[in-house]
C-alpha cells in the first residue's frame, strides 16, 4: 500500500515536470531538426545570428565578473560589518527579484533617454547609453545583481569569524586573510551564485529588449534574435537559435548541479 502510494506520487511528480518543462524543450529540439541540420545551422551561422550569440556572451563577460566582485564585497559588508543601515541595503539588493524586468528597462529608458536625468549630459560627452551596448550591460547587471550576494551571505554566516581571527593571529593581514582563508571557504557558494548570474544574463529578455532598441546585427542578443525570427515567420531560425540558447542554459545549470554536489560533499 505504502509503496503503491509512493509510486503514485512519483509518477504524478514526474508527469507534471514532463508536461510543463520537458515537453516544450523536446518540441524545440524536434522542430529544429525536423528538416535536417541545414536550416537551423544556416540560421545561427547567419551574420545576425552569430552577432547575437557574440553579444550575449559579451553581456555575460561584463556583467558576471562585475556582479561577482560586487556581490562578494556586499556580502562581506552585510555579514562582517554589522551596521544599522545594513537592513536597508539588504532590502535594496532584493529589488531586482521583485521588480518586473520590463519596469527595470523602462526606468533605465527614463534615466538615460534624451529627456532623462543623465541622458543629455552623457550625450554631450559623446556617450550613447540607450540603443547600444552600455545600456544593455546596465540592464543585464541590474537584473542579475542579487544572485551572488544571496548565495554568499549564508555561507559567510555559516563559516563564522574564527578562521579569519586565527589567520590574523598567525600574521596575515586583511587582504591575505581574504584570499587565503575567507574566499576558499566560501568558494562553492560564490561559484553557485556565478552560475545563476550567468544563466540569468543569458536569458534576460524584458529589460534588455527595451533599452536595446533591438537593432539586428547591432543590439540584438540571442533571446531578442529568437523573438525576431519568430515574429518574421522564420521558424527554422527561431528554433535553431533557441536550441543554442537552451544548450548554453543547460550547460550552466549542469555546472551548477556539479558544484552543488561538491558543496554537499
Amino acid at each position, binding site marked *: 500500500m505504502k509503496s503503491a502510494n509512493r509510486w503514485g506520487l512519483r509518477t504524478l511528480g514526474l508527469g507534471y515536470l514532463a508536461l510543463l518543462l520537458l515537453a516544450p524543450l523536446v518540441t524545440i529540439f524536434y522542430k529544429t531538426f525536423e528538416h535536417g541540420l541545414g536550416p537551423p545551422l544556416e540560421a545561427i551561422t547567419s551574420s545576425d545570428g552569430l552577432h547575437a550569440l557574440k553579444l550575449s556572451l559579451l553581456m555575460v563577460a561584463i556583467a558576471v565578473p562585475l556582479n561577482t566582485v560586487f556581490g562578494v564585497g556586499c556580502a562581506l559588508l552585510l555579514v562582517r560589518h554589522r551596521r544599522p543601515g545594513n537592513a536597508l541595503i539588504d532590502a535594496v539588493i532584493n529589488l531586482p527579484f521583485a521588480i518586473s524586468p520590463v519596469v527595470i528597462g523602462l526606468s533605465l529608458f527614463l534615466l538615460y533617454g534624451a529627456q532623462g536625468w543623465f541622458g543629455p549630459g552623457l550625450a554631450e560627452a559623446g556617450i550613447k547609453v540607450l540603443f547600444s551596448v552600455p545600456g544593455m550591460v546596465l540592464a543585464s547587471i541590474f537584473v542579475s545583481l542579487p544572485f551572488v550576494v544571496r548565495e554568499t551571505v549564508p555561507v559567510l554566516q555559516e563559516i563564522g569569524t574564527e578562521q579569519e581571527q586565527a589567520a590574523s*593571529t*598567525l*600574521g596575515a593581514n586583511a587582504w591575505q586573510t581574504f584570499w587565503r582563508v575567507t574566499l576558499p571557504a566560501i568558494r562553492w557558494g560564490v561559484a553557485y551564485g556565478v552560475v545563476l548570474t550567468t544563466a540569468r544574463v543569458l536569458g534576460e529578455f524584458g529589460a534588455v529588449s527595451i533599452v536595446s532598441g533591438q537593432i539586428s546585427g547591432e543590439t540584438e542578443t540571442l533571446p531578442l534574435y529568437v523573438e525576431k525570427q519568430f515574429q518574421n515567420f522564420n521558424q527554422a531560425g527561431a528554433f535553431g537559435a533557441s536550441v543554442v540558447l537552451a544548450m548554453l542554459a543547460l550547460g550552466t545549470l549542469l555546472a551548477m548541479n556539479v558544484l552543488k554536489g561538491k558543496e554537499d560533499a
Partner: protein
Amino acid sequence: MGISVEGAAKRFGDFQALNDVSIDVPNGSLTALLGPSGSGKSTLLRAIAGLEVLDAGRVLIDGEDVSGKPTQKREVGFVFQHYAAFKHMTVFENVGFGLKIRKWDKAKISARVHGLLSLVQLDGLADRYPSQLSGGQRQRMALARALAVEPQVLLLDEPFGALDAKVRKDLRTWLRRLHDETGVTTIFVTHDQEEAMDVAGQLVVMNEGRVEQSGTADDLYEQPANEFVMSFVGEVNRLGEHFVRPHDMTVLLDPDERSEEAMVRRIVALGFEVRVEFILADGTEVWAQLTRAELQKLELRDGQIVHLRPGQIKSFSGPSSSDGHGASTPRDLPEGGDAEVSAAA
C-alpha cells in the same frame, strides 16, 4: 615575555565584560584565567591578542604597550575552543600557514612543520584534512599551528572545552609538558577549577568582569580572599556566615561541646572517597567528604542522627574579606582550630 594588563575595561552593549582589570603574568609562566561563564576571562584573553579592542586600559607584552597594534603584529599564538582549523587546507598547510605568510622558503617550512607535527604526535597525518581528524587531533594541530611562528606568548581559549573527559585529561598533562619544553609564556582560559589547578602554576580567578584573586593553587585554596573564591576553588559548605570545606567536617556518633546534630540523608560512594549528605536541625544542607575506611568504621546509614564538628571555618565580611577565625557565630558554632583533624586530610 611577561604580559601585563592595566585597568582594562570592555562593554558589549549593556554588558560590562571587563571592569578595571589588571593582571601581571610573569615571563615563562603557565597561568590560568579561571571563572564562570560571563566572568570576562575570554574577553581578557582576546584583548591580549588584539581580537577585542578595549574601551579603556592597556596591554603590555614584554614591557611594550601593544594596545594600538593589530593582532597580526602582536606575535601571539592563539588556540580557539573550536579549533578554528582551516577546513580547506591539509594538516601540513594549516601548520605551515603562518610561515607561508612570512614567506619562508618551501624546504624550511617543510622541515619546521614536520618537526612540529612530531612534537604534537601527528606524524603521518600531514596530508589529512581537518575533517578527517578527531577533536583531540584537531586541537593538537591548532597548537602546532600557533607554535609554528614562534610566538612570544601562547594564549588558549578553553582549549579542551569541546573534548571528552578522557582526551581532556591526556591533553592537560601534555600541555604542561609542552610548556616545560618550550618555556613560552602561556595563558589559558578555563571554567574548570580542577583543570586550572592541574595545569597552571598561577591562577587568576575572575567573576563579573573583575579579578577576585590571583596566586598559586595553594594560595587560593588555603587563603581565599572572599566567599566567591572559596566556593569556586574547591568544594564548600555554608553554615550561616561561615564556610567550611567538606573534608574539614568530622562526623561523631556522640555529641561533644563543638558539634551539632545532623541527619544522614544520602551516602554516595565515589571510589576511594565517599560523599555523605546531611541535613541540620534548621534545614541547612551540608556534606562531608570521608574515606571508605572512615565510613565503614562509623557504620553510617540513611536517616541516622549523628553529630558534625566543623574544622577550619572561614568567614568573610563584605566583598573585601579576611580570614574569619575568631568571629562569633550566630548559630553558636564553635570556631575551628588548626589542630582539628579533618576527615579526609
